[in-house]
């Protein structure tokens, strides 16, 4: 420290909170609430679609209301689990490099899978002619 021209205060500045914690917590709680109707709707749909044929199932997917709700479901649930798992990894992975790789990798994977699911839904909807 004595070799540097920086004051101790200047060195300590910027090492504290990045002020993103509140946003994380608020987004987590909001997606908790938005997940509830979407998850219950998906559960209800899956139960009513038990034993359905492929065409029936895809007719359900292609229904305009279903398309919107499926896309909202995918966004809301993946956003929630990305925030949830980020906290889990930050709590239990102590190696900083591994933690960053795991958290970023998890978020990229969720982004790719969520986008693929949304595009698959749109593919069914747009090719159905409804």
């Amino acid at each position, binding site marked *: 420290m004595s070799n540097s021209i920086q004051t101790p205060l200047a060195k300590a500045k910027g090492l504290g909170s990045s002020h993103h914690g509140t946003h994380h917590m608020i987004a987590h709680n909001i997606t908790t609430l938005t997940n509830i109707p979407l998850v219950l709707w998906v559960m209800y749909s899956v139960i*009513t679609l038990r*034993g359905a044929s*492929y065409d*029936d199932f895809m007719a359900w997917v292609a229904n305009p209301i279903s398309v919107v709700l499926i896309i909202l479901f995918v966004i809301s649930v993946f956003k929630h689990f990305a925030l949830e*798992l980020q906290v889990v990894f930050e709590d239990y992975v102590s190696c900083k490099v591994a933690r960053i790789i795991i958290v970023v990798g998890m978020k990229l994977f969720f982004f790719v899978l969520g986008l*693929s*699911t949304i595009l698959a839904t749109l593919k069914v909807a747009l090719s159905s002619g409804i």
Partner: protein
Amino acid sequence: MTDITIKSKRPLSPHLQTYRLPYNALMSIAGRMVGIGLAATMVVTCIWFVTLVFNPELLAKTQIFFAFPLVKYLALVWAFAIFFYIGNGIRHFLWAIGLGVNEKAGILSGNIVLALSAIATLGLWNVTVNHSVSSPVSTTTVEESANE
């Protein structure tokens, strides 16, 4: 006082192998593990859906898979986990806005979540067992909604 004496007077943190977790701690770690499990099932479900769009025969295979007796009960465990996670999420939301943040309220709300999850799962079981898969009810409702 030297560093060594300060360290020796510090209380040890409760070690998991000798310390029985209290109710609220058990619910907390259970909620977290259920969350990780449900995240994994969400990943599997999405991969299944994307695959299904390109492989129509997967649907019949899935229906055969879920017709196995043991898998039926696993699906109910899955449903219980979802209900439990939703209830726990509401609990966390209420804590976030400052409601019920003490040990007794935590135990009470935890028990309410467990009871409601069990009731919802039993209700779901009742519906799925009493209204069997082969009924054409789903087909007609889907066709009606698709024709709108």
